[in-house]
């Protein structure tokens, strides 16, 4: 069953939104997301992968309604979010939650742990006041934080523990769908493994659906069912994790995979596979966004944008296929 569907989503941000700039028509736009479509089935983990500035976090935030889409539709359980009433949208907030990247800035430093978790519970009337404390203790137990820490402040915890508190807060709404925006990239390696294992356990226990946003491919391979590779606000390749990791097809996916450091006993001789930088998202290039760094680029790549095409059980956007 499709839980979430995203259709031709676009999100542009104005850089210079002053009255004068508008009058002179000098208002330039950052093209963060440029027409993205995908769907997520219930109980599944879809990962959005790409380098910084590719629009992966923007997609996550737009789905949760933190940004208004510039164009396109997002549907939840078959119903378009833009056509929902205010009350329905408020109810939807319980069902869709977020885990943030930075456990230092995503918790209010002036609130105690119990208040951090209590706030969403009260505003959405999840449990009665009498049951509240037990409910919070149970949540903390689920994420592996000692119940005696209820009256502590965030700064008294380590990064990994803070991330656990953030996870408890999003679980408090009994969500079906969670956007996890780089939930482990701010943590140390040995702690990353703890949090990854926790997320997978919680997914099994509560039948959660994840949109997992990350740049670390080995982590993505570990946690996902399906993977979407993004570049400059477009999906270049999307499909089953097993297929993509067994044989990446798009030139950018290949380059990305070759750039990841791997544990090895032999010294690597050749490192970089891609030259140059990602183009400026204010002035998007003509044709395929990747052509300036692609060694297979031909004339058609400079002129026409490739659409996603079905190849070997997945979808790839490249003219060279």
């Amino acid at each position: 069953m499709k839980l979430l569907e995203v259709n031709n989503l676009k999100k542009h941000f104005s850089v210079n939104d002053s009255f004068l700039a508008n009058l002179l028509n000098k208002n330039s736009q950052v093209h963060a997301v440029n027409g993205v479509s995908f769907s997520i089935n219930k109980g599944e983990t879809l990962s959005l992968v790409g380098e910084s500035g590719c629009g992966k976090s923007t997609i996550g935030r737009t789905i949760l309604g933190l940004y208004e889409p510039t164009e396109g539709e997002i549907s939840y359980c078959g119903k378009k979010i833009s056509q929902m009433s205010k009350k329905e949208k408020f109810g939807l907030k319980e069902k869709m939650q977020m885990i943030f990247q930075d456990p230092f800035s995503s918790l209010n430093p002036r609130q105690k742990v119990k208040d951090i978790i209590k706030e969403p519970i009260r505003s959405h009337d999840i449990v009665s006041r009498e049951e509240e404390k037990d409910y919070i203790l149970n949540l903390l137990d689920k994420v592996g934080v000692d119940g005696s820490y209820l009256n502590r402040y965030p700064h008294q915890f380590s990064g990994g523990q803070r991330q656990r508190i953030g996870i408890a807060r999003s679980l408090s709404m009994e969500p079906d769908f969670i956007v996890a925006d780089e939930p482990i990239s701010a943590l140390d390696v040995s702690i990353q493994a703890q949090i990854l294992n926790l997320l997978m356990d919680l997914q099994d226990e509560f039948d959660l659906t994840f949109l997992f946003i990350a740049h670390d491919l080995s982590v993505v391979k570990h946690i996902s069912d399906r993977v979407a590779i993004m570049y400059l606000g477009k999906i270049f390749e999307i499909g089953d994790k097993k297929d993509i990791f067994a044989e990446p097809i798009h030139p950018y996916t290949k380059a990305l995979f070759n750039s990841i450091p791997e544990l090895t006993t032999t010294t690597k001789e050749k490192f970089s596979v891609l030259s140059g930088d990602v183009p400026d998202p204010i002035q998007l290039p003509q044709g395929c966004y990747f052509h300036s760094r692609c060694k297979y680029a031909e004339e058609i790549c400079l002129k026409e944008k490739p659409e996603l095409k079905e190849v070997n059980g997945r979808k790839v956007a490249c003219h060279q296929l």
Partner: protein
Amino acid sequence: MQREKILEVKNLKTFFNTKDGVIKAVNGVNFDLEKGEILGIVGESGAGKSVTGFSLLRLIDPPGEILEGSIKFKGQDLMKINKRNMNKIRGKKISMIFQDPMASLNPVLTIGQQLIEVLQFHLNYSRKKARNRAVELLNMVGISSPEKRMKHYPNQLSGGMRQRVVVAIALASDPEVIIADEPTTALDVTIQAQIIGLMKNLIKDRQTSLIFITHDLALVSEIADRILVMYAGDIIEYGSKESIISNPAHPYTQGLINSIPVLDKDQKRLKQIKGLMPSPLDLPEGCKFRSRCSKKTDYCKNNDNKLKKINNNHYSTCSEAYQLQKELIAGVG
């Protein structure tokens, strides 16, 4: 083949005096660096790896203090020379690459000015000669149209280009040792690969030695000759890369290797290391890892934390590993 030792560090102790107590950030480490070698220092945040790097250049400010130890650079003890002479070595003979290129470049000077400054200060170049050399250096680190880029400010460059400029500045005075503190952590993987490849080529050509400080064991395994693993201010394992990666002796190193998800292997759950690193204010006696260790024995709380020989290219503080190795040799004998 025995290569020339360019840097010898003995019993280096760097402590920070805070109002909560003394933080023993680096607690008596010993290691050396050979000419043309790449030494990787690996550890989690708080392990003391960056403080070790900063201590080598005496870049520790109060409340921090280098309490003890000697840092011999080509036979000369850097701890014993005066500030003036240290300034001649720092940045010229031993230079540093920092993690965040935006913070290590001066935002109000053009990158040309910053390169020329280094060349004039350390090598006494004339302005014109320094300018020409600066363009050459930018070209060498792969910055296109370097003449034009000389006039740009750091904020006009992308993260990868900024780090290329930092590499160019570090190489400007033709140093013998470069200390790189997480030089690619702030960059994307494809850009990381570019910078690492660049650094490696430039160093190989000049026989420069490199100390590469990072938390990323996989990255280090791709470039280093030897690896040094730090935990809570101690070196807990030290040796050739081949030996450490294929045969880690210390349970912490084993845990680190196991907690990295491997791309071409399917695993359902990751092996994790329980718990957290002990607070640096309150370090336990004996082995500092023992509260998290699954292999601990009664001996561990009396461990002297000295490196014990596993084989010719491999040392570890873990007594368990040492015992095992002895039994192995006895068995063979």
